[in-house]
C-alpha cells in the first residue's frame, strides 16, 4: 500500500484541512466524529502555509480519539461526565504531532472512557461500521478507525488498553498499531487501565503507521512510565521463525477469520519464513486476568470524577456525599459503573488475594511464557478478533459476550509487547478481516517490517 500521508505533503495546508472537514461533514451519518476543531485547524494551517511550522507531517490533517486532550474544542471521553470539559493543556502526542506540522481537525467517538469493544457505550450514540452501517465500528477506538477507513483523514490516534486500536482497525479494514507499553507518552490521555494503556496510530498503510510512530514515540519527562527512546525503523525483516498461536486457532473463531489467518501463514512461508504452531497455555487465562486487573485500575482512575474540580456536577445534591453519588451516577454509563464496581470488589478486603493478587501472579506466568516463546520465535501470528464486525445491538445485553470479543487482543496488553492488526481480506459478505502479529517488547520496528510481508497479500 502506498502512503496516504505523503499525498497530503507539499500542498496547501488550508486546502487539506478544508477538504478533510468537508469529507467529515459528508460522512456525518457514520458518527465517527464527536466534534470538529475547524477554527484552530485553520489557524494551524495558516502557520504551516506561511512556513512558521515545518516538519515531516506539514499540513497533514488527522483526528484524535476524544480521550486525548487537545486544544481547539472539548475533550469528552464520549461521556456525560466530561460533556463540557475543555482542557487547559494538550497531550504530549498532540504537541509532538503539531510540532511536525500535523493538524488535528476533530475528535473521534469511542466507548465512554474507552470501556467497550463496539463504540456502543458512547454517551452520544454509536459509530457505524465503514463497510456496513448496520454493524458496529468496533471499539473502543471505533471513531478513529472509521474516520481513516472513510478517508476523512490519512491517520488517526487511538488508545489500546485491551485491543481498542487493533479490533476496530480489523473491523474496518485499516492498519492499527499497539506500541510496546512505554514507547509513547500517555501524558494527557484520560486514564483507564494505567498498566496497559497505550496510544497508537490507525492508518491505511504500514508505512504511515511507522511515520506517525516515529513522531509520537520517545521518553517524556511528563510520563514517568515512558521507556528510554529506542525506536528506529528498519527497511526490511530477515526471514526467520514465526509461531502460529495454537490457542487462538480454535473452533470458537469464525471460519472465515481462521481461513484468512491460514492464508497469511502461507504468504509468510512463501516469503521464506518458517511458521509452526506454538502453544501458550496461559493465554487461555488472559481474559480473566484482564477483567480483574483493568477494572481494578479503572475503579482507582475514575475515582477522580467527583463533581468538585471539573466535569459534570449534579444540580440536585444537598450535601457532599450526595454530590459524589449523584454526580457519578449521572455522569457514568452503565459499563463504566459495572467496571468500577467490579474493581471495587476485587480490591476490597477479603477478596483482594483471591482476585487481584491472583491475577497479578497469573500475569507473571503469562509474561514468562511469552518471554520463553520469543526466545525461539521472531514473532507470533493469529487473528485479531474472533469474528468480523457484529451487528449493532447484537452484544449489548450481555457484558460477558462483549468481553469475549477481546480474547485475542488482551494478551499483548498484559505482557506489554507490541502488536499490529493488518487488514487481510474479507468474509464472503465483504466484511473486513484482520490478522495480528506480535513481537517481544521494544521490537516495534521489526514488527512493522514483518507486517509489510503481509500488506496487500490477502
Amino acid at each position, binding site marked *: 500500500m502506498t502512503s496516504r500521508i505523503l499525498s497530503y505533503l507539499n500542498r496547501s495546508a488550508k486546502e487539506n484541512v478544508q477538504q478533510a472537514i468537508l469529507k467529515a461533514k459528508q460522512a456525518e451519518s457514520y458518527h465517527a466524529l464527536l466534534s470538529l476543531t475547524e477554527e484552530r485547524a485553520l489557524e494551524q494551517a495558516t502557520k504551516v502555509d506561511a512556513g512558521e511550522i515545518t516538519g515531516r507531517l506539514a499540513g497533514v490533517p488527522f483526528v484524535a480519539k476524544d480521550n486525548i486532550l487537545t486544544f481547539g474544542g472539548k475533550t469528552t471521553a464520549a461521556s456525560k461526565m466530561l460533556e463540557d470539559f475543555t482542557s487547559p493543556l494538550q497531550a504530549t502526542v498532540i504537541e509532538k504531532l503539531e510540532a511536525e506540522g500535523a493538524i488535528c481537525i476533530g475528535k473521534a467517538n469511542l466507548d465512554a472512557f474507552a470501556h467497550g469493544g463496539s463504540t456502543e457505550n458512547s454517551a452520544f450514540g454509536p459509530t457505524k461500521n465503514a463497510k456496513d452501517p448496520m454493524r458496529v465500528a468496533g471499539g473502543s477506538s471505533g471513531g478513529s478507525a472509521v474516520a481513516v477507513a472513510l478517508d476523512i483523514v490519512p491517520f488517526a490516534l487511538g488508545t489500546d488498553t485491551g485491543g481498542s486500536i487493533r479490533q476496530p482497525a480489523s473491523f474496518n479494514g485499516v492498519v492499527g498499531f499497539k506500541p510496546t507499553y512505554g514507547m509513547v507518552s500517555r501524558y494527557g490521555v484520560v486514564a483507564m487501565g494505567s498498566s496497559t494503556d497505550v496510544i497508537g496510530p490507525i492508518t491505511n498503510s504500514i508505512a504511515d503507521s511507522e511515520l506517525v510512530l516515529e513522531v509520537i514515540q520517545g521518553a517524556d519527562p511528563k510520563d514517568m512510565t515512558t521507556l528510554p527512546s529506542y525506536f528506529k525503523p528498519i527497511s526490511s525483516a530477515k526471514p526467520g521463525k514465526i509461531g502460529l498461536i495454537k490457542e487462538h486457532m480454535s473452533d470458537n473463531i469464525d471460519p472465515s477469520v481462521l481461513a484468512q489467518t491460514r492464508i497469511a501463514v502461507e504468504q509468510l512461508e512463501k516469503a521464506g519464513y518458517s511458521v509452526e504452531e506454538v502453544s501458550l497455555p496461559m493465554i487461555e487465562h488472559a481474559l480473566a486476568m484482564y477483567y480483574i486487573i483493568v477494572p481494578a485500575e479503572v475503579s482507582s482512575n475514575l475515582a477522580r470524577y467527583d463533581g468538585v474540580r471539573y466535569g459534570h456536577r449534579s444540580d440536585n445534591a444537598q*450535601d457532599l456525599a450526595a454530590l459524589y453519588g449523584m454526580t457519578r451516577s449521572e455522569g457514568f454509563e452503565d459499563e463504566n459503573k459495572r467496571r468500577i464496581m467490579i474493581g471495587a470488589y476485587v480490591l476490597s478486603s477479603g477478596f483482594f488475594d483471591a482476585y487481584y493478587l491472583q491475577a497479578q501472579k497469573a500475569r507473571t506466568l503469562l509474561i514468562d511464557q511469552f518471554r520463553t516463546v520469543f526466545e525461539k520465535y521472531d514473532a507470533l501470528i493469529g487473528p485479531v478478533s474472533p469474528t468480523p464486525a457484529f451487528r449493532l445491538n447484537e452484544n449489548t445485553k450481555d457484558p460477558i459476550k462483549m468481553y469475549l470479543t477481546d480474547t485475542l487482543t488482551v494478551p499483548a496488553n498484559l505482557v506489554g509487547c507490541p502488536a499490529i492488526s493488518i487488514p487481510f481480506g474479507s468474509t464472503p459478505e465483504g466484511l473486513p478481516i484482520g490478522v495480528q502479529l506480535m513481537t517481544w517488547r521494544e521490537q516495534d520496528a521489526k514488527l512493522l517490517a514483518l507486517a509489510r510481508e503481509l500488506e496487500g497479500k490477502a
Partner: protein
Amino acid sequence: MTQISDKDVRKLATLACLQIENSQLASLKSDLSNILSYVEKLSQLDTNGVEPTYQVTELRNVSRADEVQDTTVTRDDLLKLAPTVEGNSIRIPKVL
C-alpha cells in the same frame, strides 16, 4: 458460581460512591455475578511462590530533580474548570 446479593451491590455502590436506583439492582446483580463467575476460574491456577507483576516497564524509581517545572497551566485556568467558584476557592455543598 459467585452470587452477589442486593446487599453486596449496595455495599459496592457505597465503596465506589455511586448512587444506585432500586430499578437498577436486579440487572447489576446479575451482570456482576456473571462477570465474577467468569473471572473466578483463575482461582484454579497454581500460583504458589509466583511474584505478582504490577507493571511491565522494568523501570524502577524514576525520579527527577525537586524543582518547579515550567507549566503553561495557571491557577485561573484550573479554577475556570470548576462548576462553582468563590474567590480562589471551589465551592461545594455542606459536608455534614
